[in-house]
């Protein structure tokens, strides 16, 4: 292997390489660690946490679609308290960056979660999920409302000095406007994208295949959309971008970085190849060698139009 420098910085957050595992697709790290060496990747983003535990949506929660899948897990999670008690001890030993993802039903809940989690040393950064399409408390989907996203960023910012990443919804006309308000309100980076709203029906029963009716579309099917969103942000707002959506291999990772991503997250691919993260890190090394790239970070936003 070469000595290429794969490290990247997301604001003040230093990652040894740009490969993160996405929230909701790696649990709290323990199950996937049986298949892969988490110390070799850039970091993991924990399943979205809420203040209280959530049991999530009734089955059926997932369905396969052409080159993708729909999910409506409903943010099933153990809640912040159990997370600190039961999950942090394991995460602490992983020797990788831990980004804690928070999803809440109100601005107050976001702030409260952040305050409780902030003192935990093991947590290196926060990712705020304003964009989960599968929970509807309060009726409002924050992620599609510019003011809400601004306000959440501002309030959470005032609750922590750790790197703050806002995970954006793709289900909007101009995602760059959301990135801009994140930047203005002091966020350090944006993650793009969360899942696209989708659905699917059984033509014999006429019932939705997913009990929640709609779910979030992920996987290779959405990669072109995700890339376009990353590119749109890159061309309009000066803020680090974590690219997400349909990444299956190192080629996809390079593509996202060319389009403007500083780092990437792997979601659906973890279900199919839980060792994908490590394989991608290896693939990035040999790509850089072939292309005589000394610092992988030179690739970020290096598109030639």
């Amino acid at each position, binding site marked *: 292997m070469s000595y290429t420098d794969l490290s990247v910085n997301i604001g003040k957050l230093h990652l040894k390489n740009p490969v993160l595992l996405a929230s909701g697709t790696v649990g709290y790290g323990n199950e996937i660690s*049986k*298949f892969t060496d988490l110390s070799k990747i850039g970091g993991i983003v924990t399943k979205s946490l809420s203040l209280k535990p959530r*049991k999530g949506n009734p*089955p059926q929660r*997932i369905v396969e679609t052409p080159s993708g899948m729909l999910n409506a897990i409903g943010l099933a999670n153990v809640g912040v308290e159990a997370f600190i008690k039961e999950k942090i001890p394991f995460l602490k030993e992983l020797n990788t960056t831990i980004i804690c993802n928070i999803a809440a039903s109100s601005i107050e809940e976001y702030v409260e979660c952040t305050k409780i989690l902030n003192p935990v040393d093991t947590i290196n950064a926060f990712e705020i999920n304003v964009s989960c399409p599968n929970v509807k408390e309060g009726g409002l989907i924050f992620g599609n409302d510019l003011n809400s996203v601004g306000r959440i960023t501002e309030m959470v910012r005032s609750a922590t000095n750790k790197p703050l990443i806002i995970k954006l919804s793709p289900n909007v006309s101009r995602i760059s406007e959301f990135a801009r308000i994140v930047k203005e309100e002091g966020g350090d980076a944006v993650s793009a994208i969360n899942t696209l709203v989708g659905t699917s029906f059984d033509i014999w029963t006429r019932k939705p295949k997913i009990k929640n009716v709609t779910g979030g579309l992920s996987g290779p099917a959405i990669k072109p959309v995700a890339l376009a969103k990353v590119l749109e942000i890159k061309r309009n707002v000066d803020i680090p971008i974590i690219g997400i959506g349909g990444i*299956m291999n190192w080629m996809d990772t390079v593509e996202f970085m060319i389009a403007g991503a500083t780092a990437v997250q792997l979601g659906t691919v973890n279900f*199919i190849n839980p060792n994908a993260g490590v394989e991608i890190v290896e693939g990035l090394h040999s790509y850089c060698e072939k292309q005589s790239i000394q610092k992988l970070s030179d690739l970020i936003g290096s598109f030639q139009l």
Partner: protein
Amino acid sequence: MYIEKSRVEWIKNLLPDTFLLRVYSPLIASKIKPGQFCNIKVSESDFPLLRRPFSICEVDGEFLHFMFDVHGEGTKILSNKQKDDVIDILGPLGNGFNYSGDYSTAIIAAGGIGIAPFPYLIQKLADDKKVISFFGGRSKNNVIEYGMKNLLISTDDGSIGFKGNVVQLIESQYSQFRNESVRIFACGPNPMLKALQEFSIKNNIECQISTESAMACGFGICQGCPIDNADGDGYYLICKDGPVFDAKMVRL
């Protein structure tokens, strides 16, 4: 747990749409237990995207056997595999049947392709256990007997064996083993499992059921495979906490 690239040794038909697949998979073979399953990537490309879960059917030294029905595109691709093709198998996954302990008679209850996990279970059952197997199918063209012991058959149309479903057949035979210490092992469609759950609870018989659900990962990271716990106030994950549950633990 392993991700093992496994060479196909052979594949053969048991019925026109039911296959038995033999693969060389020494790592998984050395660890897997009856009732556990593997999550199989049926193609080298990204299509179909997700793995497909299959129960372990039999272990023969360093070889695994899977028994499967052609259902949709994924199982069709699997059925077209040929000797020396390599498939990517993730396993062993889930818990298995708990077949040790103090009972004299193992009742096997299989609905259709739900028979898949039982050849291995029967292999592994201690010699001192009596085994009675029940298989329920739609008609005599759907009957699978592979790996069964003391087999009684029911068909919906009565074209062979008992006319009715497999739970009715078991009930009709209940007097036979009423006074023995029995443990039921069941796998099949949900309505069957439900009927058997009621039957076993009513008659206070130990009963283990192997359940199914759509799955993405198969090992606990996607939360895609919930099943209601008995109280209905929370979920188990079928892939991690199951697929085998004590019938009293879950709400079907």
